[in-house]
């Protein structure tokens, strides 16, 4: 089937079987490989993208359910004020290690800061609970979110 969606601001039309996860359309059809495959069952958060502004696990989102939706991925998150702040904070604190989960971490962190501009540590731990990092960079992610909140506040 043909699906139309808006990806990172551009109208795109893709061919995919119904039931295909958005993740694989993004990665294999649109060749936007910044969004990662980690588990396929929404348990690790590596595939997090924004669908109409909401952080969403793309591995468990069927392509037919996002017809006409606005999807944004890590490749374009820097165009967003909060996204740019999170990326800046990540760089200032050298959050990454292997980096494979970090696209998803950043997309979730942006979602958190849009909802809660000055999150407490407990709110950060709660919101980020579904984003796994096997390198265990958690304490820098936590600090990165707090730093990004400061950057946004200016």
């Amino acid at each position, binding site marked *: 089937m043909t699906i139309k969606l808006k990806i990172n601001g551009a109208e795109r039309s893709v061919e995919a079987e119904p039931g295909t996860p958005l993740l694989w359309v993004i990665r294999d059809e649109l060749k936007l490989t*910044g969004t990662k495959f980690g588990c396929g069952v929404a348990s690790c958060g590596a595939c997090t993208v924004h669908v109409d502004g909401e952080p969403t696990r793309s591995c468990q989102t069927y392509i037919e359910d996002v017809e006409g939706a606005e999807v944004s991925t890590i490749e374009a998150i820097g165009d967003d004020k909060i996204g740019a702040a999170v990326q800046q904070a*990540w760089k200032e604190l*050298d959050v990454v290690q*292997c980096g494979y989960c970090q*696209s998803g971490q950043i997309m979730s962190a942006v979602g958190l800061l849009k909802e809660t501009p000055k999150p407490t540590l407990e709110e950060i731990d709660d919101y980020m*609970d579904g984003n*796994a990092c096997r390198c*265990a960079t958690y304490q820098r992610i936590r600090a990165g979110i707090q730093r990004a909140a400061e950057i946004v506040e200016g």
Partner: protein
Amino acid sequence: MTINTSRRSFLKGAGAAVAVLAVGIDPKGALAASTSEAGTAITPFVKIYADGTVAAVIKHFEGGQGTSTGLSTLIAEELNMELGDITFEMAPADAAVYNNLFFGALQGTGGSTAMANSFMQYRTAGAAARDVLLQAAAKDWGVGPSELTLSNGVISGAGQEGHIGEFIATAAQIEVPAEPVLKAPEDWTQIGNTQKARRDSHDKINGEGIYGMDIQLDGQMVVAIKRIPQYGATVASFDDSAAKDVTGFIMAKALPNGAGVVAYAENTWAAFQARDAIEVEWDLSKAETRSSDEIKQQLLAAVNTDPQWQASETTLDATTAALEGAAQVVEREFFLPMLAHATMEPLSATIAATEDGGVIMYDGAQGPTINHATMHQILGIPMDKIEVKTLYAGGFFGRRFNAGADYIVETTLAFSMTDQTRPVKLVWSREDDLSGGWYRPAYAHKVRMGLDDAGKIVGWDHRVAGQSIAKDGPFEAFYVKDGVDISSVEGTAENPYAIPGMHIGLTDAAPATTVNYWRSVGHSHNAYVMETMMDVAAAAAGQDPVSFRLAHLPGDTADQKRKAGVLKLAAEKAGFGKPLPDGHFHGVAVHKSFGTYCAQICEISIDEDDYVQIAKYTAAVDCGVAVNPDVVKAQVEGAIGFGVGHIMRAQITLDGGVVEQQNFPDYEPLRMRDIKAIEVHIVKTNEAPSGIGEPGTPRRAQHSRTQSQPPGVIW
């Protein structure tokens, strides 16, 4: 010559002009320079481009441990430039020139050796590059080299100033000094600098970094494998008729080694669906059928009999005699389960034909020359027509290097069964990853410790039983000495503690799965057991766990001094011994591994429902010169999380030989809320750098409930 801002645009317009100066070593091991982009005839460690860009050539892959930053720092230091201004490139696979000095004729990363291997190599190459550039400028300007200085890519002096890129052609004609003068430690500005300037950070925060999983070649097929359900099984027959209903399915073929059926498809989703639709009849006649409980009982029985191998100078008889004379003996048994690496990036590699009749493999390659040899053996293509392109690896923890080169073999076999016109990309799912073998083996330990009246250890009988990682594999000669696989017992007999009468016994267990090196390898279980026993003994001696350990680190050797040093530092920084909030407790551990000493004080909280959280880890580490202190801290932070996350909840279990864990819900990773804070302190020292990727992992620094536990099996 003007300075170009873009290297690419310069290269396009420069024609035959010299585009790059590569400095490294020639086939005889001598320092040498070349102007070939490929570094033909020499092994470059640093490249200087005509636009002044400096690139460190990284021979140890980047899997998050910070090699791209660490090795770049060494080059930046000697070229008097800021770490933030240097770029890096991954080295090609070439065992002859990029071998790991600790591994012999093999290019690979492991055993936390990247910095220990490279500290002199890369500094020497950087210093040689500085030397020939300064000589080149002096020659061009007709002045003496001693009048000139190099700083931040600019050579100046004698009233002249020029960019390093201007001198690469002349520099290539100058004889490289055999022993260039390295900068003195007191002149270092980059080594030991606490700046945060990871070289891989940019790529990893905007989706630009390319991992094995991210390769998208024109015309590529994606393959997924229906794998044997248990160790020792093989494919008897298969039926792919249901797979034919999957849009994008191309074909299915049984692997010639019997290890599964390959589903070829147009994209990843189709490959997974087709794989799941293939029905396979397995030959289970030689398959593992035990369950974890049976294996556990067998291993525990093994540590209750005389060991198969003696892994210490002290004999069992001597230790038994020492224990008989002890004032008291404490005894515990342990069982440590199989563990998976569960790298965030499931395994993936891609192979494609090249125009010259060869092949190229794209992989986050931990052992690039193993890839090289594997492709050569399976495809019969000459080594010089095989290329390995090393990409970012989404974590490794040891997983990407094993005796069977498993996913490299699979990728190559899958390619070999096609007409080889289309690239083949192998993708593992998380289910493949968790249930597909290559685990940290399960181990049982039994320890009997004798104490004298003063609470000093007088004897230690330590028995280990488990499946050998190295035996019957290609690395057996490296690891197995007199029957003992040292990777099973490392960290015990050679431990710096002053322990008289310490006997280490080892018993090999029958294979239950494929097994592999896992972050910190033998230390992962040996340090856990030893440090738990130090707590048990401290309690028996009526001493606190820090004092008891320090009493066994009298400082008679440098080893003991360094181990005691990190323990004292961690204890001081954590405020060990000072009152803690109600329901909070301190746990202690200290261990030496990979040449590095690491102590950890863990503050846990236990609420009225017995829910345990880690309030804070305070760690101290002595890894010699900390080339990048912030990377060292990050590695210790991460290793603590990796280690304790497994101790808290993750394990691989078998039911009738079949792995029970399939995806993260069954192998729950450490989550953000599990550790509230980690503080890492680095000992300042001039000792040579030692490992840092693994030494933070192996220990058990939770509050030890074993102190009050009766003897029995401890998890």
